[in-house]
């Protein structure tokens, strides 16, 4: 038997690992043999994630990515304690809805900080000599929102489009170091964010239209985790600068 998504011996940093896609990704990567470095704000929830994981040697760092100027120091500590990284998965993200009339620079900046700037800073730090291993793979979790606009989502949609655009540049710049950079682009996924949205907006006609668009069904978070695992694995060694759609058909 072969396992094309084998991640044995790989050390992978996952942000947003305390809930949603980040948590499920950390769990799935551990089941594929990966050693995971978990980052998120809430230490209790991070430890809950570790309890659900397989294998040994996973480490937890409680950190708020909004402290962007401290990411460099965080990465230095992580590399010192865990060794050079094979992978980075940026799952941390926020999706606040706000009509354009109230979308001012400070709000935009806050969304961009968590969803986008912190990813660029993480990639900048991890792609420095001795911090990564040859064949490393970096992944940002984007969204079909980067391609489909919606009312009250200027900040979120733009932050996800920024990720997709950035990985195309990073892929070219980091190719000579043997690093690949991609995004995974989910549609609606069954996470807490989805449940919150449905509780508030399931009766709104806009929500019904969006759900109808995803005609083959709502994606389970494990499917996103598997897409991430594939892009991390050596099976995907010529895939770079791309956005991997896992969208239930919504963009077709």
């Amino acid at each position, binding site marked *: 038997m072969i396992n094309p998504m084998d991640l044995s011996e790989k050390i992978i940093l996952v942000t947003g690992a305390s809930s949603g896609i980040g948590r499920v990704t950390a769990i799935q990567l551990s089941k594929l043999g990966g050693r995971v470095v978990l980052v998120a704000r809430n230490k209790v929830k991070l430890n809950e994630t570790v309890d659900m994981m397989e294998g040994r040697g996973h480490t937890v760092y409680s950190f708020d990515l909004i402290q962007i100027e401290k990411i460099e120091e965080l990465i230095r500590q992580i590399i010192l304690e865990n060794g050079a990284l094979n992978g980075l998965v940026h799952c941390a993200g926020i999706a606040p*809805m706000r*009509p354009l*009339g*109230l979308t001012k620079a400070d709000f935009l900046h806050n969304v961009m900080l968590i969803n986008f700037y912190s990813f660029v800073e993480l990639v900048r730090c991890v792609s420095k000599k001795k911090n990564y291993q040859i064949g490393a793979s970096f992944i940002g979790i984007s969204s079909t929102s980067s391609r489909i606009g919606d009312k*009250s989502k200027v900040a979120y949609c733009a932050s996800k489009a920024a990720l997709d655009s950035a990985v195309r540049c990073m892929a070219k710049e980091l190719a000579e170091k043997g690093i690949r950079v991609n995004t995974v682009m989910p549609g609606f996924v069954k996470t807490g964010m989805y449940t919150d949205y449905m509780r508030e907006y399931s009766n709104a006609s806009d929500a019904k239209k969006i759900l109808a668009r995803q005609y083959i069904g709502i994606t389970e978070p494990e499917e996103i985790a598997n897409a991430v695992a594939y892009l991390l694995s050596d099976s995907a060694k010529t895939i770079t600068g791309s956005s991997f759609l896992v969208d239930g058909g919504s963009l077709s």
Partner: protein
Amino acid sequence: MTNREKLALLENMLELEEGELNEEIKLSELENWNSMAKLSLIVLMDDEFGKKLSGEQIRRFETIKDILNFME
């Protein structure tokens, strides 16, 4: 914050002229009391008053006065 100041916040949010709103006005009579206005109100409550407003709570609002009362 005085009631007049609170009304001014709502007038600004709903793009109405100054003095157009009063406490007795029913939300159902306001032409632009739509889903975007409701979302704007959630944001306004958070930004200006540090209060979390749920969809359920909004559905219970009948008049402008109900909103002003929630702002306190």
